[in-house]
């Protein structure tokens, strides 16, 4: 049992940190120089696609290198990648796509020229995703599917060129059967996108209405009726990614720094017993969660699958994200009340409430916490 990284791993860590320091855009450049950053990653030999296999251009990281890479990227708050193409569709394509589909779609994903969105959730199919109703009927000549239905909570649908989409081709058998995985161009006249403004006041999710959209069978991934199998593996993957533990470490440090600037009596808010204790309780759990992620990594490095403790990462990680965002509104005090662009009160207070409200989604999307607990109880603890 050894907590230290090997010399090789430390050298790799050094390399990653140096790269970040040399290439990371600062301040407002975060938004304007995004593309340059991803190009620099690409130029390193697949650092933009750290999880891809070597044959598709991935960098071939060991599990420990992957962890170090993710850790340093998070620690330095590098710009997040939009996950739908690179992270979500690509693995499915690589595993289940035809040679033709791979040749057609992978390049646009690889160079970031094509934006994808994920058409899974529906008004009646959220946590219970297999309940989806969007209908895809095969034409008589078997050349296309006619798709009708509604998707919702579709992140970035309004800037996407394509959607990968779960549709129902049969209602026989279990809900999980009869689901088919289709790729749909967003510029089809039957596709209509309407914005949803969320609690935090922002527009990133949408409703997508599909009316008589004709999707050629060549846009179907794998077999008809097997879509659930293809998508399922990824859902699990999506969940661990949502723990955002390193982001929380940064966010908590920021929250503490902000609270130190808020005058409260003789000292700062960080001297106020109730606030201080909440910070402490949270930080202790975060320390523990951070190391839980390492335990998971260590098992994967040792060639075992992730152990049962990996199941807690999303559950606890999102809870901690939310508690940090609560600290921020508490620290903002009366300045948690102003809304909108006018700068009122301390800088951090401006985004505190919208961050808190927007963050309520983390325990709902990607498997609501209640559903996560059902799953852990059943699959890990053998309950019911």
């Amino acid at each position, binding site marked *: 049992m050894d907590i230290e990284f090997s010399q090789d791993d430390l050298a790799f860590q050094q390399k990653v940190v140096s790269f970040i320091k040399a290439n990371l855009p600062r301040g407002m450049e975060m938004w304007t120089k995004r593309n340059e950053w991803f190009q620099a990653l690409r130029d390193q030999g697949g650092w933009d696609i750290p999880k891809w296999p070597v044959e598709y251009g991935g960098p071939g990281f060991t599990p420990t290198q992957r962890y170090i890479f993710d850790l340093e990227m998070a620690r330095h708050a590098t710009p997040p990648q939009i996950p739908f193409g690179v992270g979500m569709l690509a693995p499915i394509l690589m595993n289940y796509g035809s040679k033709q589909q791979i040749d057609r779609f992978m390049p646009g994903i690889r160079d970031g020229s094509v934006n994808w969105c994920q058409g899974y*959730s529906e008004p*009646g199919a*959220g*946590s*219970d995703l297999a*309940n989806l109703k969007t209908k895809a009927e095969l034409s008589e000549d078997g050349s296309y599917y006619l798709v009708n239905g509604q998707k*919702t*909570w579709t992140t970035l649908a309004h800037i996407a060129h394509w959607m990968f989409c779960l549709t129902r081709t049969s209602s026989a058998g279990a809900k999980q059967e009869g689901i088919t995985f289709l790729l749909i161009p967003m510029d089809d006249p039957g596709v209509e996108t309407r914005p*949803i*403004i*969320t*609690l935090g*006041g922002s527009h990133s999710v949408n409703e997508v209405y599909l009316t008589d959209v004709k999707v050629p069978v060549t846009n179907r991934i794998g077999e008809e009726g097997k879509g659930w199998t293809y998508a399922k593996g990824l859902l699990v993957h999506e969940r661990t990614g949502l723990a955002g533990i390193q982001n929380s470490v940064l966010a908590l440090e920021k929250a503490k720094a902000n609270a130190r600037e808020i*005058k*409260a*009596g003789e000292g700062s808010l960080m001297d*106020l*017993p*109730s*606030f201080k204790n*909440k910070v402490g309780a949270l930080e202790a759990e975060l320390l523990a969660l951070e190391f839980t992620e390492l335990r998971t990594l260590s098992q994967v490095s040792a060639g075992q699958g992730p152990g049962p403790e990996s199941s807690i990462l999303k559950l606890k990680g999102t809870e901690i994200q*939310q508690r940090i965002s*609560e600290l921020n*509104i*508490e620290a*903002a*005090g*009366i*300045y*948690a*009340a*102003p*809304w*909108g662009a*006018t700068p*009122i*009160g301390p800088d951090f207070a401006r985004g505190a*409430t919208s961050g*808190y*409200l927007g963050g*309520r*989604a983390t*325990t*709902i*999307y990607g498997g*609501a*916490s*209640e559903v996560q*607990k059902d799953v852990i109880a059943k699959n890990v603890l053998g309950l019911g």
Partner: protein
Amino acid sequence: MDLSLTNEQQLLQDSIRKFISTQYSLSERNKFIKEDQGYDSSNWQQFADLGWLAMTFSEEYGGLGGSTVDSMIMLEEFGKRLVVEPFLSTVVLFGAAIELAGTPQQKQSLIPSIIEGKLIGTFAYAEPVEPNNLSAIQTRATAEDSGFALNGSKSLVFNAISADKILLSARTSGEDFDEQGISLFIVDAQATGLTRTDYLTVDGLSASELQLKNVRVESDDLLGSLGSAGGLIQSLVNKGILGLAAEAIGTMEVLYKSTIEYTKQRQQFDHALADFQVLKHRMTDMFVDYNLVKSLCMKATMLEALGAAEAQRNIHALKYLVGKTGRFIGQNAVQLHGGMGMTEELAIAHYFKRLLVIDAQFGNTDHHLNKFVG
């Protein structure tokens, strides 16, 4: 001891319930906040006509002689429909200040106008340096000629955009954080040297930051005695807290009840959400916590109305619980509404936001817990 409503109180409650059920749907409310002054003037005139604005003023100046208990009854109902008219600013804070400390002349010139719905007032007490500390007053009132010149700034002044008069704390002596040396002034909202930065708050209401540069007030604009307004400010803050708490009770009731309704309708995994034991217990917790806050709100309000010394402790405990429970109920209303709870469209989003703003005012959860434990 009798905690049921008197006949008069029952009538008051009924009249408000009738008003909001016929004239105050949430979509109408969301139109009212878009009007220039942030609320609907004809509603305000109706409040006056129905006698609601008169309720808590003494009979001598045209009021109905009610107490904080009557405010509570009204605000609880307002909270159920997120009523945006400036009742708290004008009646509970500004009006009460005049009633408590005004000279006969001040009362005569202001209270009847409030009661008639002709005068909107508000209360500017917080300053950026330490908004929760009522003694952290850096705004200075310098005596000159027969009056004072005011210089400084105020934060989060609700309804300043529509106010005719602003009650404003300023330092007439002492150092920045001294408890003594603070005075209250009735300032004309249009006074020269007074500039506003207006903004909306999270819940869609209007508030402003105020800058004062040599704003001139006369000596008869002073409210109460010179340099010792601390006690009066604390009393007003207490009234503000009680008012917000009553509103929050109404708001929380709607949230927990509509969550129950939603989960009965919404199907997931072939069952109504309401069939899941974990969600049932969560809603039971919401119900339990709601009832605890409601109890403490009633108690603190009645103690304040009696002028009992123990009111202060209860008010600190109350504001703490209002914040904590408001967040618990709001968060779980959103969580149990699932994705739907995340949309701006749905009513619960507005109710939740209102609770967040209520927590932020007059010192939040943390602040009052620390005050309560001393």
